[in-house]
């Protein structure tokens, strides 16, 4: 349980982090909250030659910027969970954060680390795709903004180029009346999810579905955006047991999760149907007629 030898460098700004990362090359890893990287190092599954600690690179709080919620990369999950700004602007993000690990993990882990790590079972990647959020990155050639739908590519792999670091995450503010739900299936409190479902629903004046966003997580190489499949069933119709179950069936058919110690692939696939149905019904119950659409 002792990591192999590594060098350590502290960055006090994002440009400095980028510079250190360029110098360190492929053997360098960025250390934010360390809640995934450090255990992997202790198990010697990761053996970086250089750790670039970015904890000194910025300390901003989540804030609203012209209809968007901007969450700085070093925002801890516990802050996400409790911040009044986040709960007001994007409550689903606070809800998703509350499912991450345990209280110790949530106090150290950061949103930037979580998206850069891109664990397919991560709560934040799943929510960000559902929210049509984006990731702000800084690299040798400057800043760019990558849509969450393009950012998460496959297992532990993102659209980050060499030398790039995540500096913030941004999502649209959830308008009042938009219903939302984030649910996940776990075998034990604090564990990685077997299935995650994030749903956002807008109803029209008649209480019919005006727009639906649906993402499932933990069941593939990256968050699976099933909004089109959900829309095909629900658009301009009512969201009830039958229609939500139909989306669940289609969602289940669209994924092929692998076997894991916590549950077989077949079980997780079956549970996608259950959790999609429950998430859609829960989001619809929160939505107000003539809401955000």
């Amino acid at each position, binding site marked *: 349980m002792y990591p192999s030898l590594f060098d350590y460098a502290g960055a006090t700004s994002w440009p400095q982090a980028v510079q250190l990362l360029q110098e360190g090359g492929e053997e360098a890893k960025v250390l934010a909250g360390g809640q995934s990287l450090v255990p992997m190092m202790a198990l010697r599954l990761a053996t970086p030659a250089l750790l670039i600690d970015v904890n000194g690179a910025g300390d901003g709080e989540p804030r609203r910027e012209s209809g968007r919620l901007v969450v700085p990369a070093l925002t801890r999950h516990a802050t996400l969970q409790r911040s009044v700004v986040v709960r007001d602007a994007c409550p689903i993000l606070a809800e998703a954060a509350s499912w991450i690990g345990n209280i110790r993990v949530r106090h150290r882990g950061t949103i930037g680390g979580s998206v850069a790590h891109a664990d397919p079972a991560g709560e934040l990647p799943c929510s960000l795709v559902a929210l049509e959020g984006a990731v702000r990155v800084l690299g040798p050639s400057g800043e760019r903004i990558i849509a969450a739908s393009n950012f998460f590519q496959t297992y532990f792999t993102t659209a980050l180029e060499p030398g790039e670091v995540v500096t913030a995450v941004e999502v649209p503010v959830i308008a009042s009346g938009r219903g939302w739900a984030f649910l996940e299936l776990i075998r*034990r409190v604090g564990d990685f999810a077997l299935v995650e479902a994030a749903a956002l629903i807008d109803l029209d004046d008649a209480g019919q579905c005006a727009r639906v966003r649906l993402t499932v997580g933990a069941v593939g190489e990256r968050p699976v955006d099933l909004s089109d499949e959900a829309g095909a069933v629900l658009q301009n119709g009512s969201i009830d047991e039958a229609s939500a179950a139909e989306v669940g069936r289609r969602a289940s058919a669209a994924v092929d999760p692998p076997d894991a110690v916590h549950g077989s692939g077949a079980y997780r696939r079956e549970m996608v149907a259950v959790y999609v149905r429950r998430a859609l019904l829960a989001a619809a119950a929160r939505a107000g007629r003539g809401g955000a659409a």
Partner: protein
Amino acid sequence: MTAGVDARTAPPAVPVAPVGPPGELVRTGETFRVVGTSISHRDFEQKVRGELSYADDWRMPGMLYGRIVRAQLPSALIERIDRSGALAIPGVHAVLTAADVPRNAITEEASGLGMDPIVQPVLAADRVRYQGEPVAVVAAETAAAAEDAADRVLVDYRDHPGVFDPEAALAPDAPLVHRQGNRLVEWRLERGDPDEALRTADAVVEGEYRTQFVDHAYMEPEAGVGWIDGDGVVTLRVATQVIEHAREIAQILGVPHTKVRVIGTYMGGGFGGKEDMTIEPYLALLVWATRRPVKMVWSRQESLLARQKRHPFTMYYRTGVMSDGRIVGETVRIVGDAGAYPLLSPRVLFAGAVTAAGPYDVPNVRVESTAVFTNNVPTSAMRGFGAMQVVFGYESQMDRLADQLGLSRTEIRERNFIKKGGQLPTHEQLDTYVAVRETLQTALEALDEEAGSGDAALDGGDTNAHYLVGRGFACGIQPYGRSRFFADRASCWMGLERDGSAVVRIGVTDLGAGQAASLAQITAEVLGVHPDRISVHIADTALTPLSGGTFGTRQLYMSGNAVLKTARELRDKLAPVATSLLGVDDPAELEFADDRVAVRGGADRFLSLAELSGAAEERGVMPFHLSTFEAETGHFDVRTGRGQTFPDFTFGTHAADVAVDLETGQIRILRYVACHDVGRMINPQRVEGQIQGGAVQGIGYALSEEIRIVEGIPESSLFADYLMPTSADVPDVRAIPLEIGLGKGPFGARGIGEPPIAPPAAVLANAVADAIGVRITELPITPERVLAALRERRGVGADRERGGPTPA
């Protein structure tokens, strides 16, 4: 009352209130001052403050760090070991292999009856028999260097056929784990004519039940520090349940027993996992080879991968019953996976056999209980010790019998409960009062009470889920104390200091369950010394009389009785001094209490214990005493399966209501009660702690914990993949200790360490069956197994949706 003794720590002596139906109880009429009170002890406070020095907290100047190199294959021949890469790492002081071990054998004859001659190497020499088996051991100046060195010990293996399923291992052409054959032991017990009884029974229920490998998963890892002291004695300060392993360690080193000293630390849990040796021989070898202090701490990965586990059992039950509910015959066949080495498997399968018919008097019964070698990680002692797995078997059978006959589930049990004088499958008669019926009644009443008091919404806030609710309960019998044929003994030294404080020296180890604290309480009761003025020195082979390890729920029975006996004898030794000074004739007129000895009824005629101690010494009566408690012994005939087994048993009943999510298969425990008859409580708070902890550990076993081993390779080597429940996953357990049938421990106490872990699996299997109408027969009861059972029910077209629990 003396100053400093408040009402909480020493209430006025009152008779212990009788519980349960009068007439059948054994009552002594004794009254107690200290026994039966929930006094605290320094270990509580030290643990909460983080001040207690656990094994891993110890440091020595010049200390090295040890690490084991473990086999990466479950069955292979060792062709070559190259340690040059490891030795080249700076700071590495030793890399030892089998050839470096003076006597490369861990010997313990576990059955006690001369049945298992197979020797386990300390370090594998030419062959590895399970993944994780120690192959080499290294010592280096830092823990990181030791880990680097261990990674660079290169072992060339050649594949060797292995066998991973115990029933496959019994096939004639199965690969042999040991050349003596794969059948390690088979116990056979028979009473009456079960075949004939099953032929003539009104109904016969057959059941096959499977349990899994689980880990002890204590908080404190296997840890210790060793050094050679100024007298050349190899001294190990380690977390162990058994300091007597000092003798085995001496044999491994090839030195006299007196040249190895084991000091046992207060442990952060053992549960049987520190009953066999863990780090001790490896630490001793490194200390011996380097002549330096060495520390070794196993990582959680090592512990989960390679330390012994609980036996998976496959149990085949056939139970015959008459239409009135009387069980007339039963056959039980148990196959237990011993893994690659014997360890304590013979004893575990023995305990399983003895208790296989449960707390029921079955006139015709046959039990065959077999331990089989495989190339899986070895299995050995774990809380419940074979008597746990069978509860899942016999209590599932009882509910099935009730359903088959249309009797209530309490009625079928009450018709068959064993009573004092009733017989186990070994033909031995129970010789103490059996209060299992009272525990059943109490548990069910308490569950109704809990249900009536209202609780959280069934759906846990998720209104889109669909649930069914069910109730289950299970009764259990668990031995306490070692098998009688071991002729168990425990010794104790006790002295009264000149200031009237008391010293107890006894070899007992403290798992964290308050072993030492209970002994202080017993001493206080007899000698009248305030508990805070008693020092209990434990667990040091050089300084404390040996009292046997802390296992088999034996410690209160053995060391408790040893302390009680020693204290009474010391009191009797000092009494004549007191009688002569106080001018009374009969020692019975004396009362030892409140730090003094007084004449009963004569308020002004007393001596302080300090005065008594001094006066005794002046008269040449030394105020200390050494004594040995000898357990009840008995003979057991392996050939006929008849004879006496355990000194006594503890009985109990657990009951629960559950909600089953019909879509996900998840089980939520709505309420859980656990009731045991403990005869006499020395410290009620500790008794309740044992019951709650045992029930929670048993719930983990029932619902989620499993080390899944595929072809000899464990899939759970991290807690992330070992689903031990957390405080957020388990319900509040209502613990209800009863004091009804006095047992054989001090003041009539019965052991309570192991019994509470055993019933939960059967309770929850019965509750799930009650909820969904289908029975799960394989542990753990995972959501997937529940869904599979639900599919099976839909398949047969049964439809039994209900809104509430079935009354018991």
